């Protein structure tokens, strides 16, 4: 069966003040129906731009090459009308900051039903009925009352759940969640993760979950991609990826997080900083910060090559990596 989303060799170049800036290089990824896929990396690594490409939200002047197919539709060939049909009803998105994503002066009910009336052609009564169901599904207490409430009357966690309900209003098959829990407290985050997992199980929703938190990646997703400087550097089943990484960058990210072992000062920062777009060195982009770099790393960017069943890594050295249990 063909994957629901199939992105192949995607490259995106944005116009910059001093000429075009290549942001994404040769990104390939797939999401199956009902699958929870994680996309990890630091800010500026291109994970959010990938999401924008898949929703046709790139700024004017962006150059895109490669292919992106969603349920048989070629996304990169869509015109405005085509995008209107995909957005919301095919692919929907949830953003990091629900306060910015929700309209402050419209009731939650209005924002929920607007979608359904356009995409699902529901009349007012059935749209309201579905809105109540959706709010109930995302566990917002007293949904009838919540419909008449404004976003500021909700707590942060409720707002994000309302944003998820709105994203789901037109029955999308793929939800792209871009750091949806980063601004939330751990207990609220736990609720959102449980909600996404339940929606997948109950409705077959596929979720592409973008996060910089490897703990979240591990807790929720079954397959993951690690991005660095606009490239996928490693991919595989999330559990294997994070317990036995094969790319030095994945291992370095793991080392930089709190271990929960109460050994003071064991955070191992990654030296330096990721390269700015257009300033990546020739060869492997991680090579200047990598403890295992060899001369071979400086020539061409290593391609993503299979290392085991379902696992690929873009590293020519493939050092033996020590990972402490946590």
């Amino acid at each position: 069966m063909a994957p629901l989303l199939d992105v192949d060799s995607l490259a995106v170049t944005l116009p910059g003040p001093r000429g075009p800036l290549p942001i994404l290089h040769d990104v390939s990824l797939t999401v199956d129906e009902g699958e929870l896929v994680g996309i990890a990396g630091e800010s500026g690594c291109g994970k959010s731009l990938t999401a924008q490409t898949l929703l046709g939200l790139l700024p004017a002047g962006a150059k895109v090459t490669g292919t992106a197919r969603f349920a048989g539709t070629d996304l990169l060939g869509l015109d405005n009308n085509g995008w209107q049909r995909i957005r919301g009803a095919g692919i929907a998105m949830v953003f990091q900051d629900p306060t910015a994503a929700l309209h402050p002066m419209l009731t939650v009910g209005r924002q929920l039903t607007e979608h359904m009336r356009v995409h699902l052609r529901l009349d007012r009564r059935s749209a309201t009925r579905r809105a109540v169901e959706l709010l109930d599904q995302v566990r917002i207490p007293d949904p009838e009352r919540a419909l008449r409430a404004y976003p500021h009357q909700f707590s942060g966690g409720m707002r994000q759940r309302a944003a998820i309900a709105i994203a789901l209003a037109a029955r999308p098959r793929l939800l792209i969640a871009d750091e949806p829990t980063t601004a939330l407290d751990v207990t609220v985050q736990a609720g959102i993760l449980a909600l996404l997992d339940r929606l997948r199980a109950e409705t077959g929703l596929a979720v592409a979950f973008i996060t910089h938190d490897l703990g979240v990646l591990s807790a929720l997703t079954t397959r993951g991609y690690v991005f660095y400087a606009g490239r996928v550097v490693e991919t595989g089943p999330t559990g294997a990826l994070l317990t036995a990484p094969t790319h030095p960058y994945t291992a370095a990210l793991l080392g930089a997080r709190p271990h929960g072992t109460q050994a003071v000062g064991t955070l191992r920062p990654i030296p330096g900083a990721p390269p700015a777009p257009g300033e990546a060195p020739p060869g492997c982009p991680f090579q200047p910060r990598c403890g295992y770099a060899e001369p071979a790393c400086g020539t061409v960017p290593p391609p993503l090559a299979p290392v085991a069943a379902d696992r690929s890594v873009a590293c020519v050295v493939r050092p033996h990596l020590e990972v402490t249990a946590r």
Partner: protein
Amino acid sequence: MTGLLDISDVEVEYRSRGRGRVLAVAGVSLDVAAGQIVGLVGESGCGKSSLARVAVGLTPPSAGVVRFAGQPVTPLGWRRRPDTEIGLQMVFQNPYASLNPRRTIGAQLLDGVPATVTGAARRDRVRELLDRVGMPTTAAERYPHQFSGGQRQRLAIARALAPQPRMIIADEPVTALDASSQAQVVNLLVGLVRDLDMGMLFISHDLALVHEIADITAVMYLGRVVESAPTRELWRNPRHPYTRALIDAVPRIGPTPRLPATLAGEVPDPANAPTGCRFRPRCPHAFAPCGDQPPTLDLGGRSAACWLNDPTAAPATVPAN
């Protein structure tokens, strides 16, 4: 024991139209000794930032007192801070807001260098400060926008270090940063405490991070410290159900996906805080005595405000966690 920083029975009250009186901090006592890192964890709205502002003297408490090196901290006003209180400095969450965008880093660092240091020694001090936070000397000539978020936070730390403080209050200092710069800044702060024998109150909503670096951890819920213990013991054997819920909600890395445990309900509005134990409506162990506010019980080197720890109130069958 009284520490270098001694927060005692502090209350912070806000009055706002329509909501009436909101007790954001409802009687908190905390000590921080020299060379010690005390972590303060809690979720948004629990009052931890209000407490930080009071602790550093940015706002006056509505009740209680904060002492620094034995002297009550005077709330900041138009007058110059007393020399003794210059030893108490703060690092804020957002280095984009805490540095002046229109002045060079060097000029901003010089503001903090004591007036007793004169002449060429002032320039030397700036160089030392930049060196201490791992930034090149050339940074002094540059402006904040020329640095990344992590670098800017290191510069904000250098600014806080300029008057040679004995105590730093860091309010979510790494929340805005990426994983790798987070680790750099945290290691810098921990190194400073150990090398310079400073005290640090490290405020964060990131339990795993506090667990990594703090000697003592205090957990706040709705304006109260519900548990305080040496970090390792707190993590291994929490004595308050809220602490347990926080620990269980941290997502872990493992070979198969495992969702973190969820906690029922929402954090109540502090203007309408529940009577008795404020965690009661969400607590899986709530029982009759919880209708009364639990006292902070001394449990030998640690404390918790939960009736489950009181043998006279708790039935023996209810596990403490």
